């Protein structure tokens, strides 16, 4: 076969840092963050605010998003959309509580739509308006068009809800690098993915929703084992408890709307104040000039909200039960959501899990920060000392073990990711119905000198003669550096697969060492390959010849028979001696001794095939 010169596989050129953000698209509020000079940072609006209320108002002239829209909610409820996240990817039939929202729903199939003064809108379009504000905020501060974003979604979001989130980003020309589960983002913000493998719990008490997720970190990948929650429980309920307490203490009658708003605002401030103080005064003058002067202590607050805290413990127990775990299995607990600042929440969580939760990051920001870290890694920005394995090329070759303990490289080193590479393999023995696949990483020729990443087995290969089966092994690496290896038998489509993160537990020094060793030991490796290849050949010859002796041994004189047996014996001895030269000589010798035998067998089978046939049948 003649070869042509091909273009080199270019490793990715080094480029300027790319603009990537993480977006926490929340039910009550949203945030955008980026990694700036290696530090995850929340991006503030021009008035210094981090949180953008997830509220969109379709006004007469324009579209208003955020705090200004929220303030108009009571005056223009039908055109001011709050909590749009609850409707993402939902049909009317999915929403049993639609009547509680003051919107004009359209009775149509598919995703819900609602009528506003500027036309019919669906949740994707409404969410897109929130994303647009965050995108513009980021682009103004980062000085250019975004290269991509990671957007977080609740772990329980189904495909339709996830797809809707992606489409919202697409509508405003924002490239979604990936969607990330909110609890996973929080865990990443705390750097748990760099830490020890194990089970983690994420307790997320937001403004209006509560979720708890049980995550398992394994080989650098988070998997959501279970998630539970209460979509009608959040920080707002704690405000409401204080509000009720005020009504009770001051013996107030039902109040006009403006007094309710005033007292609710005071309640929220009191709640926030109790995070750092033991008591807080609540002083107000109502519209009827009645004065309110109360003092709320932490003890009272804890007491009047105890049942709310208790309500968060039930989903945790359910999630643990679903994951078939107990609270003793939990290695760490992450708190997410502004409401987890309340001391009684922290105490309850600490008490339940028997360990203090992680609290040193701002619980409002932790999800957006984790998303930013992930986004930064996905666009290939990296610091010198860390993250660099989450990059856009494979640091070491990836392959599988083949006969004789050799490595067949399938993905070469420095291949740019994401990528898919496939190669066909076959069975080694007649009637073989299973194949063990051992995924390894490294530059060396022998499996024992490479890193073992994973093993799995493909069963259900139809019995065939050796070499007839076609098994396609596919290596796929996604943008996160996650490697999935699948093996598929082509005739029956039987498939098995496994997912690993090849960079897990690898640092730069380790990669350098592995590369250097592959150079230092190149000569040894070449010899090892030569030996292993000869050994495979030997095994095949041994098996074939033994089979032939059994079938057609009668074609040989007893001297010839003995000579072949002796050659086989020597061959077997050489096979196990690790002397490649001796093995090759013995192989050549065995081939010579058996060639006459092979000739006679051929004659016999030809005769068998021709017996009883005339020339016309045969030709």
């Amino acid at each position, binding site marked *: 076969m*003649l070869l042509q010169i091909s273009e080199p596989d270019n490793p990715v050129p080094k480029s300027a840092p790319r603009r990537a953000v993480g977006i926490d698209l929340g039910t009550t509020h949203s945030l955008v963050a980026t990694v700036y000079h290696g530090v995850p940072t929340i991006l503030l609006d021009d008035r210094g605010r981090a949180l953008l209320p997830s509220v969109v108002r379709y006004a007469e002239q324009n579209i208003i998003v955020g705090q200004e829209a929220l303030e108009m909610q009571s005056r223009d409820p039908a055109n001011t959309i709050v909590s749009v996240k609850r409707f993402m990817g939902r049909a009317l039939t999915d929403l049993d509580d639609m009547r509680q929202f003051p919107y004009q729903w359209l009775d149509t199939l598919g995703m819900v739509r609602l009528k506003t003064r500027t036309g019919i809108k669906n949740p994707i379009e409404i969410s897109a308006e929130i994303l647009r504000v965050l995108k513009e905020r980021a682009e103004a501060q980062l000085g250019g068009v975004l290269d991509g974003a990671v957007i977080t979604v609740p772990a329980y979001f189904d495909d339709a809800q996830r797809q809707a989130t992606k489409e919202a980003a697409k509508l405003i020309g924002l490239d979604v690098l990936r969607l990330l589960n909110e609890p996973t983002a929080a865990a990443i913000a705390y750097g748990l993915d760099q830490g020890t493998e194990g089970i983690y719990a994420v307790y997320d008490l937001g403004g209006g929703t509560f979720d708890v997720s049980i995550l398992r970190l394994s080989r650098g990948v988070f998997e959501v084992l279970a998630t539970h929650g209460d979509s009608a429980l959040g920080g707002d309920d704690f405000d409401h408890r204080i509000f009720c307490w005020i009504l009770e203490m001051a013996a107030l009658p039902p109040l006009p709307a403006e007094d309710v708003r005033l007292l609710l605002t005071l309640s929220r401030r009191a709640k926030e104040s109790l995070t750092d103080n033991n008591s807080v005064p609540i002083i107000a003058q109502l519209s009827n000039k009645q004065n309110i002067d109360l003092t709320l202590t932490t003890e009272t607050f804890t007491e009047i909200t105890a049942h709310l805290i208790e309500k968060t413990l039930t989903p945790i127990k359910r999630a643990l039960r679903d994951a078939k775990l107990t609270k003793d299995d939990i290695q760490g607990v992450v708190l997410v959501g502004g409401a987890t600042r309340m001391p009684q929440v922290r105490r309850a969580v600490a008490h339940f899990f028997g360990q203090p939760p992680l609290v040193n990051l701002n619980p409002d920001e932790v999800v957006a920060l984790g998303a930013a870290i992930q986004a930064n890694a996905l666009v290939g920005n990296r610091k010198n000392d860390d993250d660099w394995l989450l990059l856009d090329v494979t640091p070491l070759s990836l392959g599988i073990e083949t006969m004789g303990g050799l490595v067949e490289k399938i993905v070469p080193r420095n291949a740019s990711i994401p990528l898919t590479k496939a190669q066909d393999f076959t069975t080694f023995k007649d009637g073989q119905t299973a194949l063990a696949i051992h995924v390894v990483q490294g530059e060396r020729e022998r499996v024992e000198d490479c890193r073992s990443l994973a093993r799995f087995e493909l069963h259900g290969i139809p019995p065939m003669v050796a070499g007839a089966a076609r098994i396609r092994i596919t290596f796929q690496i996604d943008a996160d550096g996650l490697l999935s290896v699948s093996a598929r038998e082509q005739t029956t489509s039987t498939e098995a697969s496994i997912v690993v993160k090849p960079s897990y537990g690898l640092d730069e020094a380790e990669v350098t060492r592995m590369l250097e060793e592959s150079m230092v030991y190149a000569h040894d490796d070449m010899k090892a390959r030569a030996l292993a290849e000869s050994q495979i050949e030997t095994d095949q010859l041994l098996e074939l010849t033994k089979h032939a002796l059994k079938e057609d041994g009668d074609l040989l004189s007893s001297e010839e028979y003995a000579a072949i047996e002796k050659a086989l014996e020597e061959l077997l001895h050489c096979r196990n001696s690790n002397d490649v030269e001796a093995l090759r000589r013995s192989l050549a010798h065995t081939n010579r001794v058996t060639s006459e035998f092979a000739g006679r067998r051929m004659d016999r089978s030809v005769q068998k095939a021709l017996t009883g046939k005339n020339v016309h049948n045969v030709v």
Partner: protein
Amino acid sequence: MAIRLTPSAVKHIQTSLSKRGKGIGLRLGVKTSGCSGLAYKIEYADEIHPEDVQFDSDGVLVVVDKKSLLYLDGTRLDYIREGLSEGFKFENPNVRAQCGCGESFTV
């Protein structure tokens, strides 16, 4: 350790490089693939890596990484016409067996 190019290979490489408009020479190597173990790699070289060994053959720069060189040492690279096709042919003294199609070989 050495790798040699035949005059026709030199001529073809020089023509190809000037047509391409960039590149410092030719990169040769081996990779595992095919049905019989190893396969040749032949591509344009745009840069020299730390692990590379360089050869000059009649004005053409040939770069080979150290590891591949073990499998390629003594190779004569020719550019020939065979029937209707033309291309590069490796005459490699290290090769012990080739698979039927000639794409791969074992040492």
